[in-house]
């Protein structure tokens, strides 16, 4: 895609040097960089429009409220759902916790909560806690030795366990694998499960249509999709969403309050107590505008091409082992080099200005399954280019030489 060079210029953080080398940012899975338009939107709010939302009658408050609610509508259009079904949270972690806490009264002893072996801790621990509270069983769909979920086996597992709750990542943060969530969700729903898809990694790369996906809940974090930190989304089918009990209580989310009784507003308001992260919402609005202005198919093709180039170059190095599904992938490569510790390589890569993630990536159970103490993870975004991949590969070969030298 020829205008990647142009798009890349929109990201000011990418224009710096680290340890005397131009920054090679390959850690977008942890958080994406932000285009200038997002930074400007946050800036504009604080320099000009700062006011609380849903409160004052004065001009600034009305402007802020209107803009804030417009972003919810923008997001809803992006996901192809209703604005009322989108709750602002502090992040994917918060979103999952809200659902898991809310389902407490709907589960009882012996019910099955089904997740997969490659989930992020954020999509494991809240379910484990829910199971502990209710007596439900947490069951796990396994992965093969590469860390891949076989779709047929997964469907059989869903059929067998008849889960009350099914939660699965759309794409794995450690390996980048894209799960066949469309089929999994359909199957689980057919058996009466409540379904949640963790889209923290997938949202930016796949731009899911939630009407088609038809899951009950979908969660994401704005910061992994060009937006500011501290903001997330919980999408929920309205009836199911509204049926969840309130999670935190306070101002904004109430209907009437007396000292003996409080009545709550309807979703999404009932899940948004207190002053929200207004500047982040406005910044995320700018991120959605930014994404809407780029042709998705072309961008997706570009990302996939870059990913294949990365894999091909990685695999040409003797001793490198790449994990995960190399065909259905959002552009994340997790690898090891012989028996070398990921820590040493990541430290050396940093000295070459290359930012990667190393360790267990908040997926310790997956690491245990793969019998690894960690990997190095390279996660691409559309603002990366072949120069980044080349610089990374050359830094990697130099690091290996240093280690073995």
């Amino acid at each position, binding site marked *: 895609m020829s205008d990647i060079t142009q798009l890349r210029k929109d990201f000011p953080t990418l224009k710096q040097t680290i340890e005397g080398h131009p920054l090679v940012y390959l850690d977008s899975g942890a958080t994406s960089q932000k285009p200038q338009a997002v930074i400007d939107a946050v800036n504009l709010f604080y320099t000009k429009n700062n006011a609380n939302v849903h409160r004052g009658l004065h001009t600034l408050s009305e402007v802020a409220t209107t803009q804030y609610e417009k972003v919810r509508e923008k997001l809803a259009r992006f996901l192809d759902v209703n604005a009322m079904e989108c709750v602002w949270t502090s992040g994917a972690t918060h979103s999952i916790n809200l659902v898991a806490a809310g389902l407490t009264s709907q589960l009882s002893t012996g019910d099955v909560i089904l997740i997969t072996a490659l989930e992020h801790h954020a999509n494991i621990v809240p379910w484990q806690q829910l199971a502990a509270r209710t007596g439900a069983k947490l069951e796990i769909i396994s992965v093969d030795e590469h860390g891949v979920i076989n779709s047929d086996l997964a469907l059989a597992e869903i059929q067998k366990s008849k889960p009350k709750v099914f939660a699965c990542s759309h794409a794995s943060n450690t390996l980048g694998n894209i799960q066949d969530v469309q089929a999994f969700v359909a199957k689980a729903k057919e058996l009466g499960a409540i379904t949640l898809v963790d889209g923290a990694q997938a949202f930016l790369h796949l731009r899911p249509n939630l009407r088609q996906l038809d899951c009950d809940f979908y969660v994401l974090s704005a910061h992994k999709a060009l937006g500011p930190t501290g903001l997330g989304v919980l999408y929920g089918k309205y009836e199911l969403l509204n049926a969840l009990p309130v999670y935190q209580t306070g101002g904004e989310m109430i209907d009437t309050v007396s000292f003996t009784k409080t009545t709550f507003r309807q979703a999404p308001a009932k899940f948004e107590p207190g002053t929200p992260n207004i500047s982040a919402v406005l910044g995320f609005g700018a991120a959605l505008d930014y994404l809407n202005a780029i042709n998705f198919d072309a961008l997706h093709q570009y990302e996939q091409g870059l990913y294949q180039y990365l894999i091909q170059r990685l695999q040409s190095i003797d001793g490198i082992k790449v994990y995960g599904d190399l065909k259905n992938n959002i552009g994340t490569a997790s690898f090891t080099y012989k028996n070398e510790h990921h820590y040493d390589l990541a*430290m050396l890569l940093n*000295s070459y200005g290359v930012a990667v993630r190393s360790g267990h990536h908040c997926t310790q159970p997956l690491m245990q399954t793969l019998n690894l103490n960690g990997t190095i993870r390279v996660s691409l975004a559309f603002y990366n280019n072949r120069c980044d991949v080349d610089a990374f590969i050359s830094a990697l070969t130099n690091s290996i030489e*240093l280690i073995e030298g």
Partner: protein
Amino acid sequence: MTYQEIYTKLEKSPSWQHSYREIMLLGKQLPALPEPLKTEQARVKGCESTVWLHIDLDEQQQHLLLVGDSDTRIVKGLLSIVLALYNGKTPMQALEINAYKEFEKLGLIKHLSPSRGNGIKAIVDTIQQQVSQWA
């Protein structure tokens, strides 16, 4: 290798690559800790990599005996520098050591500490805490 020898080697390092190479060589020269000594109790908390450390006091000589190991090359090398700093010192002498300053003098802080000084701080804190009970 004595700390003075290490110091001479690293002080004039022409590049970070050279420093890293020397550090990893130091790590290689540090004898591996026998497996039975790699206990949970010996693990230093707060390091990103696994570090085991045993600190003893030779009662007669009143000097410190330290052995340790790590599962990564770089941290093992850095650990061997710390051990060289403290081994054979009396508890009183050990309390006087400012390990962080020494690492700074060796030019290692800038290159080696994007996060939490590679657990060096945790290692040094563990030593200082133990030693202060003997001093």
